Structures are given as structure tokens and as C-alpha cells.
């Protein structure tokens, strides 16, 4: 994986020093609170409900064991002994003190990490397929592109004060694990008719209060033109995106109001100019980035007999994914033990994850947007020992892709924007379906929970989406069904009136009972059944026949 050179190191240290100075100038009155706010946000520091929250970048979700151990150290030294992995492949610390933040940033810099551009109206931390470099179906590893975009977008002088935040995601596979249709820009590595490498460019996707599926801005962009093209998109957005209403300021609204064809024409004009006036990309530098992502030296060792232990086998069934090498597997470690907070990992667990990554995983870890931790390369011979090491740390829950593998935003327990709790709802659903055998019987099911309309929990693309709102001071949960965050992205359909806090879990149970009843065979997933039958039978399960008119 990419490791900092002298330039990166000096840059990050300079940013820490700069932020120390900004805090000092805020305290001596040189900067007003309004002036300070964007500067603090650009360094990842939010003011939350109870305290400051520091959001640390994990670029494209990739980290090594030393970095994971440092996160554990930070959690214990300056926070409450845990961290929260988010749907943006980041980690958040919920309880830092403002005066400690420069020291935390220094501790991050010690392991080539930072909190730059994890917030604010700028180009955010770039995300990518969490199986990058390991997936069997990959045309090309998306990480060199993601790293290139990280460098290009970091402290970009033209694009630090955009109308609104701007998120870029990259995937190298057709099977979209990076949700590229729900990003401001989504990139998929493809080949043209002659086999030349390039990108399909998607623009204007997003969730939030106005969910939109991204549109194709360019079917093929030659690889070497990437930065010139991104500069063009960003320049058009920076100049033309709405600034009168922050809810209409994302590029998806510009796409919607301008029309994709007119916007494409503007982008192409700026792109043509960029190609003429901007110096070409430094090929040697690009090559250095690519070389940093060369595959590890693959271990070659004999397989032992597969253990017959039922727990191990069920973990293999759900938590392993196919690796590009048949003698290796991709291991997903669930952060969602039954009844726990999705994404929360204790310092002790972080150290276990660091240890197993170092011993069995070529020193590599990933954070997925589904808030789990991935060991992208594990030799099949090491799987049983790995399983037992994880199990001892409470990290072997065999529920990946199942009903209790829930995405949930922090919600009203932490977030200043939230209108309802989401973590306790996730915990209760998880507890209601605690029996893993029953979960396996239900099969693949993505439940996603957001505690407000901003949709950090991606509820629009959950097979079952739950949106917590505030109705006259009372929590009310709206359900959406049939959402899909993959290459066949669909925004879920609203079922009808919302449910109270104590009604939402029983409502989800009714939905699942209805599905089990309606499916044609055990292999028909919830989403397939929904697609076959539509909303009606599920509405009946939720609201009953008699209430249908009132609903």
C-alpha cells in the first residue's frame, strides 16, 4: 500500500502546525467563529451534540497494522477507549477536547494519517471498493486512482470553498461495492474497444434529502486525462452550483436543473481548455503511486483439514468472499456483534485486528462503507486460526450481508443534526434476530438506518430502509423498501405512514415474516421477492388490509 514520502510527511506536519496557529488565532480574536468554522471543518473537527467529534481520514478505507494500533492508542489516550467506523470508510472519535486536537493530529501524522478534508465544503476523503486489489472481478485496482485523487484534491487551491461537500468514489469492478451511483462523482475503471484503460464517469448521484441516482457524464475517459477532466467538472460546479440554499447546493441539483447534456457541454468546454493549458501529468510520479500498490508476495503453503466446527463453517459461509487467487480469501470482520453499536470498535479489538492483519493478512486492513473491517488477503490455510483469534475478541460474528449486518448512522445519541435515534433501533433489530440460523434462513438482507433526512445511514438504498424523523417532538420512523446501492442502484419506495419508536422493530419483524411467507423458494432473496411482487403485500403486512384506505 501507499506509504508517505518526504513530501507527504512534510505536508501533513505543516498542516498540523497551521491548525495549531488557527486555534491560537481563534482564541486571540484574530478569527471570528464564522471565519474559524470552515478551517476547523477542513481539519475534520465537528461540534456535535455533547462534544467535539474528530473525523479521521482513512483514504479509500486502507490502513496497516501500525496505523490501526495508533487509532487504538488515540482512543485510549484522548477518547473513551473506542472509535466508530463510518459509512465513509473513516473513523470518528466522539469525545476529544479541543485543546487536545492538535496533539491527536500529530499522533496521526506519526503514522502517515490525518483528518484533512473529512468535513467542510471541499473535496472529501476519497472512497473506493473495499475489496480493491483482491477482488476476482476487477478490471484494474482502483487504489492508484484513489491515491492520485487524494493527492490532487488535498489542499487544492481552487476547490476548497465549494458550494457544498464533494465526494468521489472509485471502483475497478462492474459489481459496485463502492456505491458510485450515490456520489458526486463515481468512477469505474473500464477498457475501451481497443483495450485502452480509462474511466466511466458518473455524476450527480447522492442520497440525503433529495436522493438521486448518478448519471453517466462520460462513457469513456482516457486514463491520462483524469485530472484535467476532474478539474473541469469541479470548476463548472464551483462557478455554477447554487449557493443560495445549502439544501440545493450539491452537484446533483445542478445536474437536475441544468440537464445532463447542457452540463456535459460546459464540462467538455472547460476540459478542452484544460488539456491545452495544463501541463501533462508527471508519468514518473504516477508510476511511483502504481508501484506502491503492487500485490504482496503471495504465501504458498499446504491446506490443513477443514475444521468441522459449525461456528467456523457458518462464518466461512457469510464472512468470506472470493479472492482473485484461489488459495486466498477476502475476510470480512463484522463490527456488528448481536446487540452492539454498528461500527464501534474498542481499542482492544483494534489491537487484535492489527495483530491478525500483521500475522495472517500481509499487514493490510480495510474499512468498508458498510462499517465492517476487511482483511483483503488471507491464505486459506490460515482461516481456522484467524477465526479463533477473532472469536476470542468478539469479532467473529457470522452475519455479513444478513439481517443483523445493519448500517446505522450515529443518530440522536451523538449527532447534532439527528432527529431520531438510530443505534438503539439497530441494536434492537439485531437482538430480535439474534439466532444466526434464523438469519441464515432469511438470507441476504441489507437494513440501513438514518437518524435524519441527511441519510448518512444510506437508508434510501437499503433493501429495508429506516428513516428516523421528528414528528412534533416524537420520534417517527419511515420505512422504504427495495432500495439497492449497487450497479443496479434504485432508491427505495416509501411504504406509508411512519412508526413510533416502540413500533418500528415489530414492523420490521412483520416485513420479514411476510417475506418468508411470500418467497417462492429459500434462494429467492428479500430484494428479489420485493421486485417480483412490489409494495402491496408488504404494505398489507405492515398496515393490515382494513387500514389501507387510511394509510
Amino acid at each position, binding site marked *: 500500500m501507499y506509504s508517505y514520502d518526504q*513530501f507527504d510527511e*512534510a*505536508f501533513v506536519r*505543516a498542516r498540523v502546525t*497551521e491548525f495549531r496557529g*488557527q486555534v491560537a*488565532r481563534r482564541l486571540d*480574536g*484574530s*478569527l*471570528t467563529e464564522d*471565519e474559524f468554522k*470552515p*478551517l476547523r471543518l477542513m481539519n475534520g473537527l465537528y461540534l456535535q451534540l455533547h462534544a467535539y467529534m474528530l473525523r479521521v481520514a482513512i483514504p479509500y478505507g486502507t490502513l496497516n497494522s501500525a496505523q490501526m494500533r495508533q487509532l487504538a492508542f488515540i482512543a485510549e489516550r484522548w477518547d473513551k477507549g473506542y472509535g466508530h467506523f463510518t459509512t465513509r470508510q473513516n473513523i470518528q472519535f466522539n469525545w476529544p477536547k479541543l485543546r487536545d486536537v492538535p496533539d491527536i493530529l500529530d499522533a496521526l501524522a506519526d503514522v502517515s494519517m490525518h483528518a484533512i478534508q473529512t468535513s467542510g*465544503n471541499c473535496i472529501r476523503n476519497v472512497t473506493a471498493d473495499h475489496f480493491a486489489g483482491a477482488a476476482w472481478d476487477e478490471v484494474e485496482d482502483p487504489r492508484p486512482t484513489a491515491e*492520485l485523487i487524494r*493527492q*490532487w484534491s*488535498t*489542499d*487544492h*487551491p*481552487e*476547490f*476548497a*470553498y*465549494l458550494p457544498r461537500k464533494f465526494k468521489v468514489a472509485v471502483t475497478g469492478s462492474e459489481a459496485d461495492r463502492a456505491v458510485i451511483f450515490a456520489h458526486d462523482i463515481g468512477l469505474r475503471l473500464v477498457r475501451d474497444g481497443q483495450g485502452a484503460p480509462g474511466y466511466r464517469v458518473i455524476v450527480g448521484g447522492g442520497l440525503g434529502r433529495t436522493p438521486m441516482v448518478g448519471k453517466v457524464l462520460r462513457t469513456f475517459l482516457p486514463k491520462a486525462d483524469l*485530472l484535467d477532466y476532474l478539474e473541469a467538472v469541479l*470548476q463548472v460546479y*464551483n*462557478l455554477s452550483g447554487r*449557493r443560495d440554499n445549502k439544501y440545493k447546493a450539491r452537484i446533483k441539483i445542478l445536474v437536475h436543473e441544468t440537464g445532463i447534456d447542457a452540463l456535459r457541454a460546459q464540462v467538455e468546454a*472547460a476540459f478542452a*481548455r*484544460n488539456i491545452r*493549458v*495544463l*501541463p*501533462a*501529468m*508527471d*508519468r514518473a*510520479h504516477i508510476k511511483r503511486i502504481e508501484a506502491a500498490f503492487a500485490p504482496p508476495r503471495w504465501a504458498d503453503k499446504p491446506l490443513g483439514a477443514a475444521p468441522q466446527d459449525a461456528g467456523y463453517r457458518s462464518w466461512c459461509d457469510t464472512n468470506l468472499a472470493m479472492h482473485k487467487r484461489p488459495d486466498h480469501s477476502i475476510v470480512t470482520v463484522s463490527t456488528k456483534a448481536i446487540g452492539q453499536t454498528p461500527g464501534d470498535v474498542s481499542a482492544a479489538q483494534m489491537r487484535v485486528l492489527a495483530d491478525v492483519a500483521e500475522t495472517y493478512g500481509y499487514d493490510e486492513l480495510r474499512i468498508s462503507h458498510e462499517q465492517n473491517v476487511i482483511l483483503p488477503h488471507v491464505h486459506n490455510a490460515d482461516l481456522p486460526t484467524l477465526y479463533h483469534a477473532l472469536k476470542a475478541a468478539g469479532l467473529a460474528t457470522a452475519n455479513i450481508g444478513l439481517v443483523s449486518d445493519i448500517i446505522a448512522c450515529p443518530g440522536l445519541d451523538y449527532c447534532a443534526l439527528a432527529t431520531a435515534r438510530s443505534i438503539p433501533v439497530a441494536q434492537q433489530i439485531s437482538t430480535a434476530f439474534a439466532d444466526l440460523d434464523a438469519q441464515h434462513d432469511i438470507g441476504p438482507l441489507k437494513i440501513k438506518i438514518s437518524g435524519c433526512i441527511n441519510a448518512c445511514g444510506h437508508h434510501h438504498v437499503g433493501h429495508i430502509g429506516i428513516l428516523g424523523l421528528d414528528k412534533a417532538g416524537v420520534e417517527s420512523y419511515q420505512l422504504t423498501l427495495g432500495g439497492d446501492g449497487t450497479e443496479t442502484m434504485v432508491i427505495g419506495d416509501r411504504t406509508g405512514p411512519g412508526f413510533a419508536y416502540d413500533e418500528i422493530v415489530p414492523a420490521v419483524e412483520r416485513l420479514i415474516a411476510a417475506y418468508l411467507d411470500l418467497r417462492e423458494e429459500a434462494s429467492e432473496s428479500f430484494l428479489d421477492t420485493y421486485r417480483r411482487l412490489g409494495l402491496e403485500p408488504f404494505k398489507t403486512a405492515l398496515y393490515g388490509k382494513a387500514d389501507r384506505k387510511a394509510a
Partner: protein
Amino acid sequence: MTQIITKTGFVEETYQGQHFPFSALWDGQDLPESPFAIVLSPDSDPFDLVPWFERVDLVIIPFATSADGRGFSLARRLRHLGYRGCIRAHGHILVDQFRAALAVGIDEVEISADQARRMPQAQWQAVALDAPRYQSRLRAA
């Protein structure tokens, strides 16, 4: 009163030419033979200024608030279109944005006297203008 700031620090106003709004180029107003200044509005398209590049020696870009970053793109687009005169950012620009402003082709910044009192010359002079940038590293020299 306002304060003009360049790479060297706080400087006096030395510009002698007349100022015209961007619209003056289109509404038939008599324009002087000698070079003059144009004041853009945030939604001006710099492309429309291209025919006037020879006669304009100062373009003033307004920054209504430091959070409105359109001026950075206006300046950079002007440079990409070949404008070689002076570009002045006028309004609410922070010390923390000075390096970015110069990087996109802005030559000088004009802020209110009140802001200049809160952000004195020493703070502007302390900005490391030659700090290396990722963007220049990614492009061949």
C-alpha cells in the same frame, strides 16, 4: 478605507486607471483609450472578457464572504484564457486563503480596514507562500 496586500505585505493603492463594471463592456459606454480596470460580478463568465484582454490591466474579483469560493475559479479561468494583467481579490478573504489565492493567479488582495486590524500585516507575511503543493507535484514541470 481598505487595505491592499501583496506578496510583500501591506501596500498603498497605486492603481491610476478608471474602474468599470463588467456590464460596461456591453452597454455601449465610452471606454478610455488607456488601460482600465474591470470589476467582475461572481456570476460573470471570464470567457466574455477575452476580447478586452489587451485593454484591461486590472480585474477585480469580489469575495462577498470567505466561504464563497467562486473567485478562485474565476481567477484561474482568467489565467487559463490567457489574461496576463493584474488580478485583485476584493472583499472577505482570510489570511488562511492567501496562499490559495496566489496559487490560482490572484496577485493582490483588498480587505476592509476593520479586517486588516484583526489580521495585521505580520499574519499575512507569516504565510509560507513557497510551501510545496500536491497539484504542482502531479504535473510535469
